[in-house]
């Protein structure tokens, strides 16, 4: 078993599935000979040819629209959007067609496709390269929105996404691409979608988070543990539809809920989780629900990005606040 980074794990998931399913095709900007700006598709064109691994002209709406055409014809496209901030030109295709093709044709046309995209900030990237727009996608019924937080989950969830019979938006936290290495078997084993992953057990408070924010969250949990505060950390993983049961169960145990995400707060996924607990778990709550999120401003240019991204200190304070209530 090899120790790989998340970007390598993503690369291997592609390679595995392309080798085992000839209907899988890969497309996007600079994903061919260049192997993607983050190298997620490195080597694939060489291995699988220029028909199955295609650079596209520069147009995200086109990438999404042609993916629909490909999938409707029975292929399984994996399309890369170079950075999540460039998803907007594709939104018409995603919302008005992708998300509802099965629904509106009563199952006649289905779209087994994946749109992959780097997600979030923290690597001092240029303007528009650090966006967290998962809530925009999650608000559109008919899409699965997935975000891994480790190499192994990236591998297993991407395989699940490719094999899923419906469109999956696969968000890859850029900060984690090369942060850690982890052993993966590379055996084509998929992980389940639509469920949360418990990263850490605890009794005093539940922290729900996903993607790169698992990093700050686990560090905060470590520090709190030193002071005897035991936090349960839940990785949402599939951001839509949400596995609310796991969260409600945990809150029933801990009585306290903190949600951490990098995206802007207003109408973020944190709001949905909080609202659901306020409806179905209200009597379990021993303190107000806290959200530790990006501010309701655009992600700033990078000199301030770590003032925007929730810090360990902010998470710790939020947990402490709920404990002293």
């Amino acid at each position: 078993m090899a120790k790989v980074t998340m970007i390598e794990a993503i690369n291997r998931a592609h390679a595995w599935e392309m080798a085992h399913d000839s209907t899988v095709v890969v497309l996007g900007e600079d994903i061919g000979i260049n192997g993607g700006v983050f190298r997620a598709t490195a080597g694939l064109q060489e291995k699988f040819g220029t028909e199955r691994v295609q650079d596209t002209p520069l147009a995200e709406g086109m990438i999404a629209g042609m993916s629909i055409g490909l999938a409707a014809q029975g292929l399984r496209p994996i399309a890369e959007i170079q950075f999540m901030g460039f998803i907007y030109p594709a939104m018409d295709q995603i919302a008005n067609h992708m998300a509802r093709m099965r629904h509106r044709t009563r199952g006649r046309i289905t779209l087994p496709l994946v749109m992959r995209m780097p997600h979030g900030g923290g690597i001092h990237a240029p303007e528009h390269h650090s966006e967290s727009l998962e809530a925009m996608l999650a608000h559109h019924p008919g899409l699965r929105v997935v975000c891994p937080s480790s190499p192994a989950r990236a591998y297993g969830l991407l395989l699940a996404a490719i094999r899923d019979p419906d469109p999956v938006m696969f968000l890859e936290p850029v900060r984690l691409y090369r942060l850690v290495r982890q052993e993966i078997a590379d055996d084509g084993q998929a992980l389940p979608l639509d469920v949360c992953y418990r990263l850490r057990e605890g009794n005093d408070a539940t922290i729900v988070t996903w993607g790169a924010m698992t990093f700050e969250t686990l560090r905060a949990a470590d520090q709190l543990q030193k002071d005897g505060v035991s936090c349960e950390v839940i990785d949402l993983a599939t951001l839509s539809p949400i596995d609310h049961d796991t969260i409600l169960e945990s809150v029933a145990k801990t009585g306290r809920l903190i949600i951490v995400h990098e995206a802007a707060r207003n109408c973020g996924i944190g709001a949905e989780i909080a609202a659901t607990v306020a409806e179905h778990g209200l009597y379990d709550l021993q303190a107000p629900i806290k959200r530790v999120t990006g501010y309701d401003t655009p992600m700033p240019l990078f000199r301030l990005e770590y003032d925007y991204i929730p810090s360990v200190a902010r998470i710790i304070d939020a947990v402490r606040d709920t404990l002293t209530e």
Partner: protein
Amino acid sequence: MKTIAEFEVKYCQFLDADGKAVGKLPPFTQDAAELVKMYRLMTLVRTFDTKAINLQRTGKLGTYASCLGHEATHVGAAAAMRSDDVLVPVYREYGAQFWRGVTMTDVLLYWGGDERGNDFKESRQDFAWSVPIGSQMLHAAGAAMAMKIRGETRCALAFIGDGGTSQGAFYEAMNLAGARALPAIFVIVNNKWAISVPIEDQTATATLAQKAIAAGIPGVQVDGNDIFAVRHTVAEAIAAARDGKGPTVIEAVTYRLSDHTTADDATRYRKEHEVKDAWKSEPLLRFRAYLKSTGAWDDAREETLKAECAGLVDAAVEEYLHTPKQSTDAMFDFLFARLPKSTREQRDAARRYASSGAH
């Protein structure tokens, strides 16, 4: 300054407004039975169209987009296709769809507010109606890409309106199809109006066919009221596509004789005489005249056909009107192949309130 590139746009017409041949007709016109089949379908489409407008006026149908005047373009293009090709319609190409087996009941269900209208029994690979203007062009390009990847000799044909040519997706699709030599045919139905906006306000170009030059692919203009010109040009384009020669853009010049939809009142923005003039070159008139001149058609057959069409349309209307509303489950059943738990809960909740809303 030296000239480094030159381009031209050609025009194709076989039948003038009176149904007289201008120049040598293409071979398929020798097949009288086929021509009669085309004419019969055009007549059925028009009968259907009139009826559908009526249904809307009497509250039995939602907003409906008429295809009055477009019959030659729609039927002509479809007649050039093979059944295993992929049609990508906008929202008023009933002639093309009927040719391929979509039923009148499907069309009525769709405009009657029922998703089942999109569940065609025939040509199940064809796309459903696409209301977001321009977006469908990319589906055709993508489908054509799939065909190319698999080495098939099929093709995808998309329609788009004159107004639709202002949308970026139109150019993106042409450019992609050109760059990858995809077997895609893009038929621009220039009916001169995009709701109230005349083509002159939509673009500064002299033709819409020339927009193909921006993608480095051939663009041809045809008389869209001349079914021979449409079928011939589309057939040539399809042959080239099957042959690996890539896409073609065809501008079919016609006229929207109706309001934009039943929700529109065109007298607000266009002159009566323009419409009156346009009626002189409408497509059935000239086709009928031509068929009569060849002896393939006469008034008696016309009468029989009219009665037949009326009967077929009435039967479809009956079927439509007797299709019961879907249950509230229909909102959920096809959202995903595997319905998530939260959606299942919502489905169950919705059952409890079936028809509790205002009407």
